[in-house]
């Protein structure tokens, strides 16, 4: 059985079979991470493809100083956050046009997101929670998703986000505070 190191070496030589094995082994990790951040299955699928293309194109820059999964998480998180920024820019551009009466008005709110991995009795609550997550600042969102959805420790998250463990603790604490505030307001208005 080929080890991870051997697979990476083969991928660096452009071996397609090695690339296929890597995709099959890591695709759920990447897809789940991206999906948690962008909250749209179609976009997450597209972005997952982009992540693996970036892996293939940039594998020579992976020096093995961190775990391969850390590197993957980093690319996945950055790709997803870049996509969110691009989505926001398009929305802003669209609202300028709509002020000129050139485009139909679109709702600012994302449609309710239902994660396929959530248990049946938590589906409705998770929709409320994901809506609140979508309103978090980028770094808090990324840290929260990596912790809650991928089960990463604060140390692992710090390596992915290239920051300190105490910074990650602060991010998650602030994320929890923001989420509570949003949900208190939501339930107060029910």
């Amino acid at each position, binding site marked *: 059985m080929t080890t991870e190191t051997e697979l990476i070496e083969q991928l660096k030589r452009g071996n397609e079979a090695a690339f296929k094995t890597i995709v099959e082994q890591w695709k759920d990790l990447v897809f789940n991470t991206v999906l948690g951040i962008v909250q749209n299955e179609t976009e997450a699928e597209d972005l997952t493809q982009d992540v693996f293309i970036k892996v293939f194109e940039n594998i020579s820059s992976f020096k093995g100083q961190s775990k391969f999964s850390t590197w993957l998480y980093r690319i996945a998180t950055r790709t997803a956050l870049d996509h969110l920024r691009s989505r926001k820019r398009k929305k802003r551009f669209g609202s300028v046009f709509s002020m000129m009466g050139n485009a139909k008005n679109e709702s600012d709110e994302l449609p309710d997101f239902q994660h396929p991995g959530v248990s049946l009795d938590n589906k409705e609550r998770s929709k409320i929670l994901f809506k609140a997550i979508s309103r978090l600042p980028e770094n808090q969102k990324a840290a929260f998703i990596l912790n809650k959805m991928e089960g990463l420790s604060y140390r692992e998250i710090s390596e992915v986000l290239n920051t300190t463990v105490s910074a990650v603790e602060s991010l998650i604490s602030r994320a929890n505070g923001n989420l509570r505030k949003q*949900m208190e307001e939501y339930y107060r208005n029910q």
Partner: protein
Amino acid sequence: MLNKENIQEEVERTLLSLEGIKRAGANPFLFTRITAKMQDRNGWERITSFISRPVVVVSALLIVLAVNSWAVFGSGTATLAREKESVAVTDIADEYNLAANANYDYENIPNE
């Protein structure tokens, strides 16, 4: 409307709604889609990388400038030549009374 205690309870339960969440599964045909996308991108990349080469950009600019210069200066010379030619033709026509309107000037035909 929920009271304060109920609200806190609801908030806590909602915050815990991701406990035990399972990883979402990626498309089983993901690898096929990736290779197709890479082939598409390779095509476009070749075109864009060719167009963005400095030699190609400079050559294209020179061609555009040359065409513009010919359009501006070249057509000016042609107009001058046409005008000169027109003057020569008019002179000949006048000398031999070959102007087109002369044949239709019935009212001013001198009585012979």
